[in-house]
């Protein structure tokens, strides 16, 4: 009965009171409801719960530009009228309003994902959950789609310190553009996103032909779907692709973004997934028995979000939740049935079999390119093209690379691939 996996769950009670503003569909209060549901099912007895540290600006700047982080830090609703240029530059104001405690909110959810990654790196847990995270649209220098700080990228960067290859899977109804973009040039992160594409649906990227470039070519996978996809087709497609991806890519760790806006009846989404279908994807990914970082994401019908993530917490704990929601302070939000089931959607499924199979074929085709590409580093050790540029004298003694690590670098010198040498060069050049 008891799960073998050690689960770390991150929650900070302060996120529940964050308010994006009137009429804004993103409601962090859903996190509060999720947590409540988790507690009401007693799931907390099966896992360790942590309060994440508030990520420091310097941690956020591991991915984001310093000026952007700094601006997020400084801006408040009362002063924003003074910074209209910056607001425009950083894409704040439309989808991404400036609200009270904005920066603290970012610190909390980003801190959660970073902590989760660190716990995984230190093998302190097998699965880490941060429902507050998963804000996959944020870009290096700007906010986008309700996302300010891209905690996923920060978490993956953390994981990359320890793992050679990270697989990122995204089942939000929106394309995981921020993460894809951040790792577009690298083969050390494979991003796989299942999302609605077309009709000018946000964010407009995610065509099946976007597959990464340079070293990262074929390491970005997009599965564009149309309105109304149902459980059966979605999970079948998901399992086919993900199992192939895991087989070929052999990641050391998986990051799973569980945006709940792909559920039926979402305020912004247009899929027909039930919670079972959504959770089935989580279950499937868990079965690989790889270290797993699970985050939230979108989800704009908040009681459904709470249901979904509670169920998925249960899935990760190998606990099936009974349909009748136990009494709790928010029980009324789950009326009138007070059950975990959500009604199936009424959106017509526009994904024909032929469409889905053509998408599948294209994705698998691209995957085959990885299989046959001679330059792909599939050895356990990733290519060591990041030659540390440190000055021994300036180096903090605490951080000094020990002899063993240095030896490793030297040993691996002869294993460089010719193409690898200019990897850095490419990154700087473009």
């Amino acid at each position, binding site marked *: 009965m008891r799960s073998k996996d050690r689960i770390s769950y991150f*929650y900070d*009670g302060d996120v529940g009171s964050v*308010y*994006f*503003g009137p*009429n*804004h*569909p993103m409601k962090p*209060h859903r996190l*509060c409801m999720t947590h409540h549901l988790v507690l009401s*099912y*007693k799931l907390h007895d*099966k896992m360790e*719960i*942590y*309060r*994440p*540290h508030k990520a420091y600006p310097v941690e956020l700047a*591991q991915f984001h530009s310093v000026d952007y982080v700094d601006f997020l830090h400084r801006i408040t609703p009362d002063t924003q009228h003074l910074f209209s240029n910056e607001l425009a530059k950083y894409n704040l*104001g*439309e*989808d991404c309003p400036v*609200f009270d405690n904005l920066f603290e909110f970012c610190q909390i959810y980003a*801190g959660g994902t970073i902590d989760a990654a660190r716990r995984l790196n230190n*093998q*302190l847990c097998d699965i880490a959950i941060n429902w507050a995270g998963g804000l996959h649209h944020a*870009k290096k220098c700007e906010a986008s*789609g*309700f996302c300010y700080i891209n905690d996923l990228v920060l978490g993956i960067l953390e994981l990359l*310190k320890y793992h050679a290859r990270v697989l990122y899977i995204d089942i939000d109804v929106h394309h995981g*553009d921020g993460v894809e973009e*951040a*790792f577009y*040039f*690298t083969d050390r992160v494979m991003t796989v996103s299942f999302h609605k594409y077309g*009709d*000018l649906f946000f*964010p*407009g*990227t995610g*065509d099946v032909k*976007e597959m990464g470039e340079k070293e990262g070519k074929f390491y970005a996978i997009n599965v564009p779907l*149309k309105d109304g996809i149902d459980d059966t087709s979605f999970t079948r497609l998901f399992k086919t692709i993900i199992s192939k991806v895991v087989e070929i890519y052999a990641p050391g760790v998986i990051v799973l973004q569980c945006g709940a806006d792909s559920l039926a*009846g979402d*305020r912004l989404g247009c899929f027909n997934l039930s919670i079972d279908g959504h959770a089935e994807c989580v279950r499937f990914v868990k079965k690989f028995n790889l270290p797993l970082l699970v985050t939230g994401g979108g989800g704009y*019908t*908040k009681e459904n979000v709470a249901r979904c993530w509670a169920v998925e917490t249960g899935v990760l704990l190998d606990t099936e939740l009974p349909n009748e*929601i*136990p009494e*709790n*302070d*928010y029980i009324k939000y789950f*009326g*009138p049935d007070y059950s975990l089931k959500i009604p199936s959607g009424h959106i017509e499924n526009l994904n*024909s079999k*032929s*469409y889905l199979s053509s998408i599948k074929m294209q994705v698998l085709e691209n995957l085959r390119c990885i299989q046959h590409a001679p330059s792909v580093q599939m050895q356990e050790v990733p290519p060591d093209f*990041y030659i540390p540029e440190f000055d021994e004298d300036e180096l903090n003694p605490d951080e000094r690379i020990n002899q063993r690590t240095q030896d490793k670098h030297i040993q691996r010198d002869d294993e460089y691939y010719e193409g690898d040498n200019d990897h850095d060069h490419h*990154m*700087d050049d473009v």
Partner: protein
Amino acid sequence: MAGWSQLDDGSTLDFVVTPSKFKAEGFFVDLRPVSEGGLVRVEASPDNTSIECVLSGFSDKLQCRFDHFLRGALEEICSKKYYRPIPPMLGNGQQVNLQKLFVVVKQKGGYDAVSENRLWDLVALESGLGVNVGSSVKLIYCKYLNTLDSCLKRAANSKVCDAVLSDIGAEFSRRLMELQTGVEGLLSEFPDRESDDKCRRLDFKRKLDYNDVEILCDTKKLKSMIVDADKDKKVLGVRQLDLDMPDCRTNEPRVGNLCNNTGSMKILQEFDGGKISIDSDEVVCLDNATKVSVNVPKIGDLCNSNEMNNTFGFSGEGKGCSSNDDVLILDPSSINKESFGHKRKTGPMWEMLNWVAGIAKNPCDPSSGSIPERSKWKSHSNEDTWKKVLLIREAVFLKRHAESSDEQLIWQSQKMHPCLYDDQLGTAYNLRERLKNDKRPISGKSTCTDSSLETQADLERSPSPCIEFYCDKFPRMPIPLGPGFQAQLPEWTSVASESDPIWLGTPIWPSKNANNKLLIERDPIGKGRQDSCGCHEPGSVECVRFHIAEKRAKLKLELGFTFLEWNLDRVGEEVRRLWTQEEEKKFKDIVQSNPASTERSFWDYIFRSFPTKTREDLVSYYFNVFLLLRRGHQNRHTPDDIDSDDDGSESGPMKNVFGHQAENSRRPTLLTPKKPQRNCR
């Protein structure tokens, strides 16, 4: 990007001697102006000697190049809408080798001399066209070879573009100047090289074209000739197609339109055997360096795909986005089998295009079959080639001719072929309509917006591959690339850094000081709600309230301090305790007096009316009490009409609160007008 043969002395020689260097690529470029009435081809002719040399040695190849070059030049120089199929055909279906014709005329002293001496029959004979076609040949000469020739002659004589400016259409001169600027820009990048070297080097980089234009303008080796028009020949190639579109309001040849649509329908425009594959980076660099604003976007259109090596063998026109008059020339002569040998999934398209090309060349060929009456179209299988063509045409015309109500009717009344549109007609149409309605350049360079500048801007922003094959119906957003967008990857060490525990999160649960081992009865993990209870009235308000309180008390006892840590003391109707009845009533009144229809959000009033409470308090009350109560009420009284969301009844579609101006946004925004939700029964 007209491909102009290089006439610089040295390089001409060079060219002749080592033609392989020039390969196919980069040699012809298509400056493609689209103007009224059809494409006019003009032709710049190298001088006799070089032509002859070339002729003798590489006639086929050269002819092909010559055709391409000519095509570009014609389109560039002449004003809109002149369409000239290349190679042209005489009335008897015989193809005219323009290059040969050109040379022959030149040998006879040029157009004037030939005309004066009535040598056209002889010219025809020597060009291998047979007898008694002198007048036709003259016509073709006029149409195809004269204009450019004369204008180039003038340009050459004046050494600058001024003459061109004054004499030729402003369009061409402008482009020439741009090209010149572009060339200078390019040249300045290689200051230490001889011009020949530069040219060659550029050639290798497939940037040759600009230079060549410049050189061409400077040399005086151009000859002029004259021609007049042969309408019959011109239209011949497309007559059959016109039959296909009886309701098009124009008789203009339209072959090209089939493929030309919105950029997303771009069928790789290809010149000369399919090898133009300018790397996108290069294009951008060109773009920045030379400001060849008109041409670069076209190159971009043509070449910015990595997969571009497998180009399609027809020469088409990238500029297709800007007007209704684009013409795509199907030129089977330039099809290079090798070039598409690698391309997967293009078979049907190929077949069809070849078919169209065949029809265009020889409309009366019985082997191409005939097309039934329009009324019978529907009954035919979509497998028929002609039907595919129609479908494609339809797809392509959808947007561009949206203004024409006639055509709108046509495409509204017809469904798209599934193989073209992935079965989903609804969304495709929908998209087009939306694109039409809001002309925002959301789509990056693959959109069919009408300014090349826009395209250029997009190109600068991202050189990512955007060439789409025919069934891509959605405009693609470019992925921005560069250090400003991608993450810097950390060094990989197989050793996890020894993190201070505070970087791993603060353990909250299981709590050291909680009543873990306590006495109270604990519910098993994952237990659901029990439907039966011992209450007097199960399911009543009181019953529910009791069970919630009971559960809450249990949880509090179990969690101990953690209960507060998670702010559980401030959730649910507990929050109500901090509010007086008057305050609650005031809150409710404000919300109800500011329904969705009003401009201002009720929050503005709320915040003002409760100066003593923080925003956090107010929001907390709203979520924990107000909405919960309303929801409880709905659950009991209107279970079929439940607002899943808090703002549901108070606010309508997103308004300009907090800057929700999705309509004015340059890019797609996540917010969509609120959909009514019925997601809870």
